[in-house]
């Protein structure tokens, strides 16, 4: 009985997710696509929760649905104006060659999905399946945290997280190089201002809590950074560009803090004779918290910089 209900729930959830993705991608109207995509992201967060992945669900809701949604809604403003001939027809007419080509591409994509599905039948082989998970479970006591996902991210595969933060930094450098930021919004009216006044401290507090609790429960630097970025975005939307994002050198330090702290800790350990990013077990918890704090600041600064879409223009830049 229980299993059947869960199966029905799974079927409905997946049908909604796939239906939303289809509708978002089939629509010619940009605004409709974006709104359907935000709903798709939220339902994905439900799916992650259903599959017992609470850290991923938190990150998807905050980053995948929330911040990506904000980015896309801000991007709707500079969409190219529809020219007169495309506003009437929803489906542009294709020549026979084009239609054939579209069918070919659709068939190839379906074949790709089929091959991927077939390969899934090959992976469930023997005792090697859980080897990595067992290795994590065996070594988690020496890792300094008790949340296995945090242990994997910040200890066992810390090098990958360092490179991921470098990817974030590279993206923000690219965004800054492409042009100035969008103009700020006007100062909000009384209703929105009063919401901002208590929402921002609440978001900052929640970010600190998520950072701290990530060591032993779902949470961590990424979710905390996203919540902090949400505070910055809310401030920006309320017209308070001066405080939504740090300025000048403070911004540069914040953006580089993630990679910088990782390198600092790694090289210091290297100088002390240990492997790069090989924490001594007694210090592992404290070092992880230190790196996570710097990473949270870097992620928040990166995401708000991505939201404003370019180099902040209020300051007098010298380069």
């Amino acid at each position, binding site marked *: 009985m229980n299993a059947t209900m869960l199966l029905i729930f799974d079927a409905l959830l997946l049908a909604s997710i796939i239906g939303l993705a289809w509708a978002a991608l089939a629509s010619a109207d940009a605004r409709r696509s974006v709104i359907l995509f935000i709903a798709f992201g939220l339902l994905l967060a439900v799916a992650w929760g259903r599959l017992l992945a609470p850290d991923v669900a938190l990150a998807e809701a905050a980053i995948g649905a929330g911040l990506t949604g904000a980015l896309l809604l801000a991007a709707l403003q500079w969409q190219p104006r529809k020219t007169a001939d495309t506003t009437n027809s929803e489906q542009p007419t294709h020549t026979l060659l084009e239609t054939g080509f579209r069918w070919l591409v659709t068939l190839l994509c379906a074949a790709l999905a089929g091959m991927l599905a077939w390969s899934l039948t090959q992976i469930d082989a023997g005792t090697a399946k859980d080897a990595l998970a067992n290795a994590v479970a065996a070594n988690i006591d020496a890792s300094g945290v008790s949340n296995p996902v945090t242990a994997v991210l910040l200890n066992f595969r810390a090098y990958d997280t360092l490179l991921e933060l470098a990817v974030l930094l590279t993206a923000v450098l690219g965004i800054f190089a492409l042009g100035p930021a969008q103009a700020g919004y006007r100062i909000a*009216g009384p*209703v*929105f201002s009063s*919401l901002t006044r208590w*929402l921002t401290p*609440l978001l900052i507090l929640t970010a600190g809590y998520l950072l701290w609790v990530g060591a032993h429960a779902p949470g961590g630097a990424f979710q905390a950074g996203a919540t902090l970025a949400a505070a910055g975005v809310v401030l920006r939307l309320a017209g308070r560009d001066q405080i939504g994002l740090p300025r000048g050198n403070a911004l540069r330090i914040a953006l580089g803090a993630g990679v910088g702290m990782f390198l600092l800790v790694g090289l210091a350990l290297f100088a002390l004779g240990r492997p790069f990013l090989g924490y001594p077990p007694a210090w592992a918890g404290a070092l992880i918290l230190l790196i996570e704090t710097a990473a949270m600041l870097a992620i928040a600064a990166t995401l708000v910089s991505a939201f404003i879409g370019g180099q902040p223009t209020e300051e007098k830049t010298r380069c």
Partner: protein
Amino acid sequence: MTDILASLLIMAGLFFFMAGSIGLLRFPDLYSRLHALTKADNLGLGLLIIGLALHLRDPLIALKLLLIWLAVLAAGATSAHLIARHARRREKHV
């Protein structure tokens, strides 16, 4: 017994969510749609949260759920206000 009450409350909450969605689809203009959606969804969420709190029977979790409801209430009302004000301004300019 408490579980039956919790289930009834959750189903009542879902009914209000559905009513709000039907209002979104069927009402003629923006303002009535906003009105239906915001009011029905807030009430639906409140009933849902009372049902969940009864089912889980943990006072700390019940407090967290109540805070979530209050935050959604405030954010939903502010969003509806902003959308309605923007629509009103656009009407006046036309």
